[in-house]
């Protein structure tokens, strides 16, 4: 469309709009305006406005503080707190590849009160460096069972991989059976079971409840 056509069309459209829309009746202005003014804010004293702004600022600051506090608390909860045995080589830190929130972190203290993670941990035993728990423990009526891994090579010989750590931490071997080994420390027992080697299947560490532990020679 050339410029002349465009101008003609524009003029024609403007005429039609003015003629047709301009003929539409409208109600008095007051009918719209009065209710609109009621809907809008009531007259506010300047001091009230300032106080309102200050109140909003305080609320925002409080909200930010609460959010920061919650974030810090959540971070501490997820990290499981500071390591409880900094000098021991057997201290286990969560593996980056494992899920921090679900991996139980064992502590060297034999006392259950020292356990910081909500998930139960093996009493009296800490996985050696390089090993980590996988997933959440299975808590049964007679025993608690964990899966762990120590790297692809060590996973095929879990008993051998954990034996030095057991010995170092004062555990005594009760003997080895078919693909498992039992260790004792006082009334506590721990059974190391080799994994099947299938993907997603890891060696297991089982701890019977002290009352139902078998005798150790």
């Amino acid at each position, binding site marked *: 469309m050339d410029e002349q056509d465009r101008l003609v*069309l524009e003029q024609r459209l403007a005429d*039609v*709009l003015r003629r047709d829309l301009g003929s539409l009746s409208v109600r008095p202005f007051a009918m*719209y*305006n009065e209710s609109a003014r009621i809907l809008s804010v009531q007259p506010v004293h300047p001091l009230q406005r300032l106080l309102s702004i200050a109140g909003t600022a305080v609320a925002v600051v409080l909200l930010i503080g609460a959010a920061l506090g919650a974030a810090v608390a959540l971070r501490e909860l997820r990290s499981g707190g500071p390591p409880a045995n900094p000098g021991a080589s057997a201290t286990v830190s969560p593996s980056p590849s494992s899920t921090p929130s679900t991996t139980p972190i064992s502590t060297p203290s034999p006392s259950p009160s020292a356990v910081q993670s909500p998930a139960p941990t093996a009493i009296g035993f800490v996985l050696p460096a390089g090993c980590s728990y996988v997933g959440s423990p299975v808590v049964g009526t007679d025993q608690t069972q964990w899966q762990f891994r120590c790297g692809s090579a060590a996973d095929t010989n879990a008993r051998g991989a954990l034996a030095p750590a057991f010995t170092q931490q004062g555990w005594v071997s009760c003997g080895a059976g078919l693909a498992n080994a039992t260790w004792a420390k006082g009334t506590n027992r721990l059974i190391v079971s080799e994994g099947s080697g299938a993907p997603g299947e890891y060696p297991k560490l089982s701890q019977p409840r002290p009352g139902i532990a078998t005798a150790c020679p």
Partner: protein
Amino acid sequence: MLFGLRKWPLWRHYLVERVNDAEWTRLLEECYARVLRALIGACGSREAAEDGLQDALAAAWKPGIRDDIERPDAWLYRAGLRAIRRSRWRLRREVRIGEDRAVAASPSLDRVFALELLMKLSTRQRELVLARFFLDLSYAEIAAQWSITVGTATSTVSQALAKLRNDLQKEEAGWTSKTV
């Protein structure tokens, strides 16, 4: 002109309005009828347009708004269009102005030629055509209000004109306009 100077710092708007209430009422009254008719043209419904205008007026009375408005008619039109789009509030608005409708019955919009013409356009084309040819906003003012470039505003209106070309030519050739 009191509008558009924007020399006062922002915080001053929270304390004192530059345009007093009487002056603001006069300016709104001068343009409300044109804006309402444009809104009717944009949405094709008198009820929705009245609700949109009322919401726009309520927004225009909020503190700190009026001093930054360059053209009250353009601002009201744009605010009204936004209000119309917020259809989730429609029920609330109908309850609010229902009594007013009972006082003055709405004339029918069934046979208005301009509305039939506008309904052939897309929503955006309709809004811009009305802003340009009914409210007489310049392309620069349209671009500022809709936050688009002048080129986009011009091309949108050109496309609308192309769509309406045949109808406008027939109208000129002797079609009888169907006004209420």
